[in-house]
């Protein structure tokens, strides 16, 4: 509400004087479409207040809408929306059947009815036309907020104006082209993802930094004298990371577990902080580090899964995409280790490595990752980010 409202003249019926700005949200409905070949799964969330205005759901007229008053009218609600939201491809209408149980969902301004249906469209669609006319003649500021997913590609969004002619049209071609193609494509994406994923790289480096050192008397760290135990330890860590993230990557991609990405990303940052701090003030005996890696590797796997899902699994088989992507991640990880380890081994005896790289580097990594934690967990944008 922005402006004061001024009274009207006695001689007139009530009139608004103010330039009062919008206060609650104006009426929106949320239209979600999931396109799989010729099938389109539709979910439409409509505010109960809007539906009541059209269909008088409040049967006893007491101003309190009870669940029974909504539930018993569900078929009518489905018919009402089916008449007002229609899909077609190339002028050929798609046909719909209502699905799903009567359900509600909470949005920012109250409860919405969740109406689901399944459309079958003619094959070979290049674009989907959405004829949206919900509340076209009763609320001129109503809008439909469209979110369309094609396959597993990045969702497209649009604001639908009721009754607009011609109907909104959404291309179904563009997103499909973006998904990597073939097994090799997914391997390349996996390598790419770990190499540009600063958080994964820093985690791995933070883990490996102390590997070339041994803890001597008075907790002093010295250069490791023998390369065999060092290599065994590195192997244990890398294997633990691989096993753990492969498990969760598969679980998430197969939709068996789907933790929220905000928590996953935050925990990945936490894992980097923890590991870097452990380099500064060792809390774990070196021989136990692989266990820590196992735990945190689980979290990183969910992170990889998020990346893979964002890519879209393409037209190929799920197993091949998953395997290819994972293989890419391992290859990227191994090349990183192969690059880092000889250098670290070579420099391990220097003060530069023991102080500058291990302590200085770990401090820097800890600080950076701490900033990520804040940014990701509390949704605070970092300056300059």
């Amino acid at each position, binding site marked *: 509400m922005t402006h004061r409202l001024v009274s009207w003249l006695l001689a007139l019926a009530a009139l608004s004087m103010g330039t009062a700005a919008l206060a609650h949200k104006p009426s929106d409905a949320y239209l979600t479409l999931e396109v799989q070949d010729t099938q389109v799964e539709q979910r439409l969330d409509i505010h*109960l207040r809007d539906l009541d205005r059209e269909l008088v759901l409040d049967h006893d007229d007491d101003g309190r809408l009870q*669940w029974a008053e909504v539930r018993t009218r569900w078929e009518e609600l489905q018919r009402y929306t089916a008449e007002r939201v229609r899909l077609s491809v190339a002028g050929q209408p798609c046909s719909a059947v209502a699905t799903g149980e009567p359900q509600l969902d909470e949005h920012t301004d109250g409860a919405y009815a969740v109406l689901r249906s399944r459309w079958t469209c003619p094959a070979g669609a290049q674009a989907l036309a959405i004829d949206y006319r919900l509340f076209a003649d009763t609320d001129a500021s109503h809008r439909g907020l469209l979110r369309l997913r094609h396959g597993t590609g990045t969702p497209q969004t649009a604001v639908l104006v009721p009754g607009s002619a011609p109907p909104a049209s959404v291309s179904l071609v563009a997103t499909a082209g973006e998904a990597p193609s073939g097994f090799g494509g997914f391997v390349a994406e996996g390598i790419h993802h770990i190499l540009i994923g600063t958080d994964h790289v820093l985690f791995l480096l933070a883990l490996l930094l102390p590997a070339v050192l041994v803890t001597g008397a008075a907790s002093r760290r010295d250069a490791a004298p023998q390369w065999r135990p060092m290599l065994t330890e590195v192997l244990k860590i890398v294997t633990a990371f691989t096993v753990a993230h492969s498990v969760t990557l598969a679980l998430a991609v197969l939709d068996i577990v789907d933790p929220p990405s905000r*928590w996953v990303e935050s925990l990945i940052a936490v894992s980097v902080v923890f590991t870097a701090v452990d380099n500064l003030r060792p809390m774990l005996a070196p021989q136990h580090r692989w266990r820590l890696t196992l735990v945190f590797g689980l979290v990183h796997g969910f992170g990889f899964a998020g990346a893979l899902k964002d890519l879209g699994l393409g037209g190929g088989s799920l197993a091949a995409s998953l395997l290819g992507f994972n293989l890419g991640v391992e290859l990227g990880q191994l090349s990183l280790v192969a690059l880092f380890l000889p250098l670290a081994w070579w420099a391990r005896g220097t003060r530069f490595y023991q102080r500058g790289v291990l302590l200085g580097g770990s401090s820097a990594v800890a600080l950076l990752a701490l900033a990520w934690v804040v940014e990701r967990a509390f949704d605070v944008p970092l300056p300059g980010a």
Partner: protein
Amino acid sequence: MNTPLARTLVVALIAIGLGGPSGATPHTPSDDQTVVATLPGTTAARRQARQLARQVHALGTSPAALPAALQLARAAIDRFRRDGDPREIGVARAALAPWWSQAAPPPAVRLLRASILQTQHDFGPALTDLDALIATPQAPLPLQAQAELIRLALLQAQGRLEDARQGCERLGSARYATLGDSVRLPAAVCAAELASLMGDENRGARELAALATRLTPQSDPGTAAWLALVRGELAERRGDPAALGLFEQALQLAPEAYTRAALADWLLDRQRHAEVLRLSDTALEDLPDSLLLRRAIALKRLGDPRAAAAADLLGQRLDATRERGDTTHRREQARYLLELRGQPQAALPLALANWAVQKEPADARLLLDCANAAGQPQAAQDVLRHLRVYHQRDARLTAALPPGAPPTLIR
């Protein structure tokens, strides 16, 4: 397994568990009696609205539909004033759809169209409609007077106080004399208020107080509520504690969302946060943004654990509004960023953009606060210029003005 590792594991598992699915998920209430939504207004008012809507719908686009359509639109705008639910503006606009796009619709439609455009901050087209209506000889005189009044509010909102003053003079002129007190009173109120906004607060306050003795709430609660609100806002600018009683009186006469927000601001300025909570004691989902904002600020300042939920909800709503391409929310958005998120750098551009559109005392204060908090006081230069041009004083701004500001600006 040693302790830090065990701790790590526990933290990791808890964190994953806590997150759950992001956002709400669809659910089926288990009990038929669960109240899933409340509908605003009285049963009688809702019945009447439904009946009107049916009537309008049945008559379609025929000219005979006009009276019912006007009534429907006016009732919707009324509900918008009371509850602050912008979907009512959409309902009003839809009722006028057959006439909406006409270059010169019937005068009554034109007046309502201007009102609706104004709520959407389409000030230019709204002014065009109002000027045209005032210049149309065939338009009924009461409609023209109402157009004058809406025009005044609009000019005042834009900070064009001198133009508003001239318009107010015209409203009080012989042209509208035949309409009697129904015009004379509002003309006197606007003259006194504009005087108070242009450097002469004492005269303004005196005249408004005199008007209040002439006007009994029983005879005209609408104008009485308006007068109380105008007096309350003036008292607030003067730092006069009488503001509280006047706001409460206005609210009693006409329970409007704007007045409630004004009262909440007055209370917030005096650290009376608990009273703000009582004023906005409704389910968060049902609160208009204006009150949700004030409630969230009060909760935050009280260190109440419910503060985060209120701020998050407001943030989501503002996001949703922006997604629609709506820019009428900049004032709320700027204040949200400034007071609830501690991001004055992000708030400042919004406060500046808001100031470009509207220049009321509250807008001046917002821009000054944002500019100061962002460490860029020079960004509020235009506010100082505006205050200087109109010799405007505002007790609330004293703290926000730079030390070098001319003494006339500071009480």
